[in-house]
């Protein structure tokens, strides 16, 4: 029995996944989710330990660990690191093998990835120098409306007349929202307007890579049903979303790790990344 782990240290949460290969089939046997907080290194370790506990195995039994996410270089117990772009692509492919485009919306990144039949990255685009169109934008909107992130999605679906959010700045969106509320607009209409504004921005970003079906959405924002609906409307296409979408980066990392455990002589991508990261 072989085990491998993927640890995705994100800006807000750390996700860890354990994969198992019994020689016949590859299976995900555990997931863990912890807040990242200020101590990035500790968050990676905690996530990994929690996933091992969930799987009922000792850390030493894990043959290979791939770290990903912005905190990846701080995962000192891991064997190598890869970007979340490669890992989300591979993770989305694991969850839905028919995936050709990945839209990932996380805490401070939005990205669109065009992928090949094996889950390899063909092209990608990301938001640059601005967090508008990311989870942080929704977080700020939630703060103004004194609402939890989990409640936002279902609540926004009630909006029938979405307001037009003219700003796409994560800071100025707050004053925009307050101004609409002062005018007597309904909170659900404001939220649904926020979703549409983000969706338009994200779709214009995504169209810079070929947006080909099937499209899989990953990242924390995929849990927001209102945002998903807005994206589907603007795209004119449906999105595949797994209940494990939040873990796509960690899953992809674990898949690369498992390849490494299974084939120590592999001269492919993981080895390349490993060699490259030895310089860090």
């Amino acid at each position, binding site marked *: 029995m072989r085990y491998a782990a993927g640890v995705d240290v994100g800006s807000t949460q750390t996700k860890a996944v354990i994969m198992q290969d019994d020689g016949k089939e590859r299976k995900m046997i555990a997931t863990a989710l912890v807040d990242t907080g200020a101590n990035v290194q500790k968050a990676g370790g905690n996530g990994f330990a929690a996933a091992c506990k969930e799987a009922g195995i000792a850390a030493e039994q894990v043959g290979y660990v791939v770290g990903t996410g912005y905190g990846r270089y701080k995962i000192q117990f891991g064997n190598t690191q890869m970007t979340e772009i490669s890992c989300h692509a591979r993770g989305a492919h694991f969850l839905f093998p028919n995936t050709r485009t990945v839209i990932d919306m996380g805490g401070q990144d939005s990205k669109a990835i065009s992928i*090949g039949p094996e889950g390899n990255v063909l*092209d990608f685009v990301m938001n640059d*120098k601005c967090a508008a169109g990311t989870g942080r934008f929704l977080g700020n909107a939630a703060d103004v409306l004194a609402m939890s992130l989990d409640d936002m999605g279902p609540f926004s679906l009630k909006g029938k007349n979405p307001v037009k959010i003219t700003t796409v700045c994560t800071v100025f969106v707050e004053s925009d929202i307050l101004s609409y509320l002062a005018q007597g607009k309904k909170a659900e209409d404001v939220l649904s307007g926020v979703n549409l504004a983000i969706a338009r921005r994200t779709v214009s970003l995504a169209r*810079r890579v070929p947006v080909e079906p099937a499209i899989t959405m990953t990242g924390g924002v995929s849990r927001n049903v209102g945002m998903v609906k807005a994206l589907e409307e603007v795209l004119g296409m449906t999105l595949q979303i797994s209940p494990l979408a939040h873990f796509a980066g960690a899953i992809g990392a674990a898949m690369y790790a498992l390849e490494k455990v299974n084939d120590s002589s592999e001269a492919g*991508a993981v080895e390349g990344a490993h060699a490259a990261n030895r*310089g860090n």
Partner: protein
Amino acid sequence: MATGEKMEYRGQIHQLQKDMMVEWYQKLNESALTGKPPAVSLMISGNCIELLEAFDLLPLYPEVNALQLAIRRQSLEPILIAEEMGYATDNCAYVKADIGAMVKGITPAGGKLPVASLALCNFVGCNVYTKWFEHIAEFQKSPLFMLDVPFLRTDSPSKDDIAYVVRQLHDLVKELEKISGKKFDMDRFREAVRNSAKVEDLWSRIKHLSKKKPSPYDAYFDAISLMGPLYVYRANPRGVHFFEVALKEYEEMVARGQGPLEKEKYRVVLEGPPPYPFFRTFRDMFAKWGACAVASTYSTVGGLWEFGFRHDPAEPFEAIALHMIENNVTNRNYLQRYDQIRKYVDEWEADGLIIHFVKSCRLFSAGQGDMRDYFTKELGIPTLYLESDIEDPRYFSEAQIRNRMDAFFESLGHAPARTAAQLSAGRAGSGIPMVPVQSPKLRVLN
């Protein structure tokens, strides 16, 4: 991140370049103290160093001063000074760094910089640059000479365009006679042009050496080091000597199968200037992946010689006009730049293209999103698009840029099958369909 000092071989030519540039700054200091020789401020794009050489005038490149400040991590202070003076945040950071440094007497290499005896604006393709030279003239009380060089609107310049620039060059000669106190000597001018032609030939041969595998030098980072002597010493016998030494060194490296990196794993083409405040960090991001630039558009800002253009001593004024109008990347039209890059990827057999968008330079960067689309979607060339700035350290987000670079090279590593498929499906080179860029067929209305 490992320190980059040991990550690549840099060769003896780098030391020689450093010595020559230090000497140039010493001459500028001497000029500042004694007024001799007089200095002329001019632009890199299509620079007419040959005319200055004919009068023993010293070139003073505000762009070089700005980049030297940035590479030494001294650019933010003068930028902030310029912003306090009223320059907008999104104004060209080269302009702000240079003006701020001029006002406060900050110099990149110590010593002093002279007041220009003439502010010679030889590139008017950028409106901000024309304002820059107006400001230099205003702040330094220097006379201003504005050369009106038409953009290259067609495949090649019209006779009228050339004659229009040549007439202005004759006017310029009269100004140079005044500030140098010397009579124009056609033989000396021809000699300067002859030196340039020799340098251009050597430089072009160096540019073609990077077709070898591995390339003996990095055609982005190392080429930038060679650009100093190319613009300051091109018309001088010392420039000829420098490029003879450089060519010899690189030919020897080719013979040994040696490149700047321990192992050349990826060959890339670079579009756009580097983020000078993070030059070392940026280079290390390539070295980490074994990526070597085999060609770059930035190294053709001062002149585009690898496709055959040389200054012709038989018609020296016309040669300078042709250099200014047609043979530097910034004065050419955008589709010609596409074609230049396509040739690089194809003939230099590159694995991908990296575009560095400069936040404070709309002239060079506008249209790069479309360029990315053309190379990825039309030609199927893996292309990475990065954003920061040439001069302003505030626009460089290291974690974001590193992430994109790592992802790009990971994806190149994941897709060997795709490259192989392209190789078999495409032409004999790197698998790029040979679809020529549709150059604009515009008619000049007289």
